[in-house]
């Protein structure tokens, strides 16, 4: 009986510790996200509405590179657009039609890019898939890494979501 109580106690402590660790990790990821320190290269568009992008994220913690790359890719598609890449890729305009959209809808995007579970339909992760977690790795400093990640972004789905939430106007808006 005593052993059982000790076992349950250890179990609770370890779950609590894992949860706290996970929260710390998410908090750290969100802090990294706020810097938006990345470069995106278009790799192609095999299917209409799905871009293949290589994201070079500058991160302090290598373990966060994967999740950060996903956020950066979605961020680029919404706010920056994607530059043409020779004959491989045509220029992709940003989904945002106003340069101030990010600040105008700060609350929405703060929640949208927050590191929550993948199942959350509001979360950025629904629109991006990691193809290759680390394609390039470069150490820039003692705690600074430049990590390349290959991802695909479902722009058609992302556009629909932002249109539905009235964040961006649809092509047929006003008609």
């Amino acid at each position, binding site marked *: 009986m005593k052993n059982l109580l000790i076992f349950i106690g250890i179990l609770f402590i370890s779950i609590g510790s894992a949860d706290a660790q996970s929260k710390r990790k998410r908090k750290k990821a969100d802090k990294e996200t706020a810097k938006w320190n990345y470069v995106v290269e278009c790799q192609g*568009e095999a299917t*209409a*509405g799905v871009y293949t992008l290589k994201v070079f994220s500058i991160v302090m913690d290598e373990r966060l590179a994967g999740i950060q790359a996903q956020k950066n890719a979605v961020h680029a598609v919404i706010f920056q657009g994607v530059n043409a890449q*020779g004959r*491989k890729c*045509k220029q992709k305009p940003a989904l945002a039609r106003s340069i101030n959209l990010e600040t105008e809808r700060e609350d929405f995007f703060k929640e949208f890019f927050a590191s929550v579970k993948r199942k959350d339909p509001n979360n950025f992760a629904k629109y991006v898939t990691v193809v290759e977690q680390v394609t390039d790795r470069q150490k820039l400093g003692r705690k600074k890494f430049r990590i390349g990640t290959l991802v695909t972004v479902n*722009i058609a789905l992302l556009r629909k979501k932002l249109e539905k939430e009235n964040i961006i106007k649809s*092509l*047929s808006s*006003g008609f």
Partner: protein
Amino acid sequence: MKNKINKLHLIVLLLFVSISFSQAKKPTLMVVPADNWCFGNGYSESFDNQGVVKDIPSYRVALQRDTDLDLVITQINGMLSQRDFDAKNLKSQLDKLESAGAEEAMRSSKYSGAQVAESPNDALRKVAKADIILKLGWTLNSTPMGEKSVTFILKALDSYTGKQIAQASGTGAPDGFSPLPVLLEEAVASHIDKFLAELQTAFERWFEKGRECAIGIRVWDDWDYDLESEDFGDDELGFLIEEWMEDNTVGGSFTTMDAEATMMNFEQVRIPMTYERKGRVRGLDARTWAKDLSKYLKGMGIENKLTTVGLGEVKLYLGSK
């Protein structure tokens, strides 16, 4: 009970908001092959324009002989549909045109039988009444190494002003394995986002500065007056019409392209996207807008006939119905 009433209020409010924000008439689109693509591929036919024979592109022949064309049009139509724009299908419109019979070359006055010579309109455009024509074309390039690439061009033309409002063009990456339909599919997929973003900019400009349309004034040849007549006010009729235009366009924005005794042409006429009637906001097209000009002229005792080409171009024939 109070909750139910609140819910009802909310539903009514949402309904009102959705109605008031979707008033303007949605432009219709149609994808056709570009003229130079048709000529380059031999899809043309001769057309006798009142004694002058000239070559015109034959969309029917192009669709019958080029399976890739149908594929590309279907793909673009599908992408437009995903963005809530149903494009008119070229093949269906051609069938409709055939069943409707030959296009009238002359338009005659209902009462006097007088005739106004009209330049041969695009018969298809008349039947389809597409506001925006998407013209596409491509060329297949081959390298000495046997690799192929596609140079693709897609343009959106406002049917009534003839202005280009969006375009996308470029050459895809060389590919030694993929067949032409695959290269074309990739070309459409890679260009469509930029193209539709430009189209959206044009739509936003319409809402901001007014929809651009064209107005033509013609005089029946049996009418006793013309646009230089001073019998209808303190100035020549043509100037009175210009004054009305000034008062009824967005920011008084229009350009008088031609002003002669028997005809006037106005282009870049900016009309509002919506108007209010009986307390409701409704979509405004050139016909509804020009109806007020027609009424203004009728008020001066000038009988007139209003004809339209789709949403954006109208012609007023003065003298009789």
